[in-house]
């Protein structure tokens, strides 16, 4: 059986989520092709061709694909599906947008955000914001799967797969791209960052949040997150929110500053490799999931941490 992976890219370059999804795909089948659907994707396709284990790379190009319009990407993938038994898609905002459409049009059940492959038909996925794990077996002849990339190791590079162009499909006649506003931040993206520094309600104001959390994040090259309490109080914008109703993150290091650890926040970060909690309340639930805790007021602890990081050459 052959499996198609749909690459994550920004037209110009290929993203690491692709490598991780290839790893998941190789657990399903030895015959893995990668589709790079976009516009001006030659470099991204060349990068995909180097991923070890990839049989061939397909490119599809059109203006609608360049904007990653869901209807267009789904149409392009759907046309390729007669040749594949499964399609695996990184669970990014692009992947989550188009993959269920492919499933509906194939009349199969989509399998969302898998974090483990048991066999070619059986997968493990988080439900209830990761408070439970569901092992599901698909009875469908073709499978449409989105992959939580943080759960898989990136496939290595060293291959040289052939690249061939395919039909871009019918586009999206009823959907028009108007504009985009990609935030130009030197900080990494929250969902993909290796280190996340999050602030909670203890910050007390938006000014304090900026003053305390951001310099620490920048010193560590980290993304900035926030608890729902901090967002609700207006200390941080909503897209910083980590939790059940916000973003689910699983960085190497998560530093929670002045966050008590409400269930809904824990649901969004408890898969982090290492969790550090800084809170002056020794009984705060965040300490029950933290690997390292500092029972201290953030007002003294964060400056001390900055200094200690500096002393350690960071």
């Amino acid at each position, binding site marked *: 059986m052959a499996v198609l992976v749909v690459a994550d890219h920004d037209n110009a370059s290929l993203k690491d989520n692709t490598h991780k999804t290839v790893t998941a795909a190789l657990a399903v089948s030895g015959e893995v092709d990668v589709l790079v659907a976009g516009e001006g994707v030659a470099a991204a396709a060349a990068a995909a061709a180097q991923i070890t284990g990839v049989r061939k790379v397909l490119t599809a190009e059109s203006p609608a694909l360049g904007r990653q319009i869901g209807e267009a990407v789904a149409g392009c993938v759907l046309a390729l599906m007669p040749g594949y038994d499964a399609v695996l898609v990184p669970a990014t905002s692009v992947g989550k947008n188009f993959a269920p459409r492919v499933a509906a049009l194939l009349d199969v059940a989509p399998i969302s955000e898998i974090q483990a492959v048991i066999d070619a038909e059986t997968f493990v996925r988080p439900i209830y914001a990761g408070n439970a794990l569901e092992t599901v077996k698909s009875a469908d002849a073709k499978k449409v799967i989105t992959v939580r990339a943080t759960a898989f190791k990136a496939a290595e590079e060293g291959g040289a797969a052939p690249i061939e162009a395919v039909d871009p499909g019918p586009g999206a006649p009823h959907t028009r*791209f108007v504009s985009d506003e990609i935030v130009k931040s030197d900080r990494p993206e929250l969902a993909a960052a290796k280190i996340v520094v999050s602030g909670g309600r203890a910050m007390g104001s938006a000014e304090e949040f900026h003053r305390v959390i951001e310099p620490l994040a920048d010193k560590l090259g980290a993304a900035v997150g926030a608890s729902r309490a901090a967002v609700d109080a207006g200390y941080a914008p909503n897209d910083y929110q980590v939790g059940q109703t916000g973003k689910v993150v699983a960085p190497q290091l998560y530093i929670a500053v002045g966050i008590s650890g409400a269930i809904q926040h824990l649901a969004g970060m408890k898969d982090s490799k290492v969790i550090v909690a800084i809170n002056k309340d020794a009984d705060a639930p965040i300490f029950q999931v933290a690997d390292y805790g500092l029972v201290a007021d953030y007002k003294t602890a964060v400056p001390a941490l900055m200094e200690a990081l500096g002393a350690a050459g960071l």
Partner: protein
Amino acid sequence: MKVLVPVKRVIDYNVKARVKSDQSGVDLANVKMSMNPFCEIAVEEAIRLKEKGAVEEIIAVSIGPIQAQETIRTALAMGADRGILVQTDADPEPLEVAKLLKAVAEAESPSLILMGKQAIDGDNNAVGQMLSALLGWPQATFASKVEVAEATVRVTREVDGGLQVLELDLPAVVTADLRLNEPRYASLPNIMKAKKKTIDIKTVDDYGGAGAGHLKVLKVTEPAKRVAGVKLETAAELVTKLKTEAGVL
């Protein structure tokens, strides 16, 4: 313009889901249930569009057990005009939900379907996209701003790293993300008024029936529990641990 808002009854987002000891699922007995938070945002957005004069009628539809009437009643108390319950005690898969909603949409002919991007129980994030595909209507998921014109809707979408603005021809399907709005609390007079609004109780067969399931849940387990670590005295000690013991710096 008529707007259809699908709403789902789920475990309240403040309640921790507990896995049953026989691994057959999550224990929902005696657990507080509420409207899915993203559905609430969709209801709120429909009401705001109505308050602006862009929408005449809001229909809240739920697919679920008889208790899902309470969820519809909440939508009516917030300001939706009438409700439809497609009653079923089975827990239909997203694909079946999308098919039933397609049949509801064909019967009601809304110009816009506004719904939550995902339910916080199954976390599939799929029904809106599938409904759009089955209907052949355009879609805009993860909306943080919705502006309705006569024959189009302009939607600002939350995408990784920023925002994307799309214009769709109506009819269309739009799914709500967190930043779209802050849902209102229903006032007491509106809760009283909602009791007089109609909820049509239908069956799955009224909308073409439900197909067989495609996915078999083999087991539901608890994720590996984290063990509380150590409390350290100083920031310097923390940095040392992170560098040497954890190796994450």
